[in-house]
């Protein structure tokens, strides 16, 4: 593919929540970009050239320069295009708190989510409980009574918890519910409000088609988990 100076190009996949949060940030800020769909079982030479260290998506290329790691990319987008839709608070303390919750979600999400998807039939109630406990902390300490993590408007924190909109598919495959109005009322309400935001709604990942893949992945993880 020819290099187009000053053009933005995002290398990603449909299903990756790390790619999805970057897509949402670009859409919310009204920034145009090319999307390059990667097949992670057959990575393109461009992807490997732009992200030789971690060799994965997302990678954002801007004016020929590549940035990897979703949170690093989000901060870059925020610094390069802060207006008219800022996605981080202005005050340093509020910014530090936003970054804290993003880091917390990513640390915990990876661990708990994979444990949840990989849990045995006998262990699934406990796995669900562990995930619920982690989400309760996020609900009570980060979200509270606010409409969004960013207050009345979306922030990077909302985008980084956006993977919760896809949790229902994992719940279906594992066969146990976690994020419900009865178990996590404020977070559930947030999830619905977030999904209804126009630029999010138009850009939700199409995961219905990926359900068989998710089931296969679960079986594989369960068997290697023994």
């Amino acid at each position: 593919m020819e290099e187009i100076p000053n053009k933005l190009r995002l290398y990603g996949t449909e299903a990756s929540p790390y790619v999805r949060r970057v897509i949402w940030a670009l859409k919310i800020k009204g920034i145009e970009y090319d999307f390059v769909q990667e097949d992670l079982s057959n990575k393109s030479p461009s992807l490997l050239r732009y992200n030789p260290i971690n060799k994965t998506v997302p990678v954002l290329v801007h004016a020929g320069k590549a940035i990897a790691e979703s949170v690093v990319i989000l901060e870059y987008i925020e610094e390069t295009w802060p207006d008219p839709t800022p996605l981080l608070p202005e005050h340093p303390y509020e910014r530090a708190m936003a970054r804290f919750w993003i880091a917390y979600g990513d640390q915990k999400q990876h661990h708990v989510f994979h444990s949840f998807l990989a849990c045995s039939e006998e262990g699934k109630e406990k796995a669900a409980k562990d995930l619920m406990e982690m989400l309760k902390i996020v609900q009570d300490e980060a979200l509270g009574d606010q409409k969004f993590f960013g207050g009345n408007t979306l922030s990077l924190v909302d985008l980084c918890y956006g993977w919760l909109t896809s949790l229902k598919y994992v719940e279906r495959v594992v066969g146990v519910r976690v994020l419900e109005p009865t178990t996590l009322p404020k977070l559930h309400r947030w999830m619905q409000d977030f999904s209804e935001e126009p630029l999010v709604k138009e850009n939700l990942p199409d995961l219905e088609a990926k359900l068989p893949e998710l089931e296969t992945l679960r079986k594989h993880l369960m068997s290697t988990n023994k």
Partner: protein
Amino acid sequence: MGGVKVLGLNSSFPCVRVLWALKLKGVNYEIVEENLLNKSPLLLQMNPIHKKVPVLIHKDKPIVESLLILEYIDEVWKTTYPLMPEDPYDCSMARFWAKFVDEKVVVTAFEAMKSEGEGKEVAIVAAKETLELLEKQIEGKKFFGGDEIGYLDLVVGWICLWLPAIEQVGGMKLLDSSTFPLLYQWTQCFVHIPAIHECLPPREKAVDYFQTGLNYLRSLDASKK
């Protein structure tokens, strides 16, 4: 109360990163020494989620996680000694490599320290591979921040004293001057900066800190068997 407090200990490198930043910016602070085996009520109140050091307390509000604290300090005291690069792309590179240092360089060094037998050789190779990537990053530059030290230098700074301590406890060599001449040269320049030097603990303290940690981990493993 508008003072700056750092809950931590000066044998812990994430804490010293914070002290370095405050010193470079000329911010007065008080250290509240923590005993990690007997955490103070203040620490548990200020960092209830992770219960770890460092914690920066500024205007009675806590900020946790050393990398986040560095960015906070840079944003609050922005007129003196900027730590983050100005250009957004350079900033993103600094953040990317900081993440790499904490998730790969530090982790593999600890793994090599803890490993024994055949696994140790494998772990040492993995640790050296991460140092090799860091060596390439310093090529052509005096410091990671350019002519002066910046955010990434403070994040990498643990290799000047804590890495030798880890090597000693682990009975191995990772950063030798012939394999990593540029990184080695960087450590020599870094430690001679007054603000950096003033905050370094005695090396024995760092050695003790890691040895105690390793003994504890080994005793946990032994009790599982």
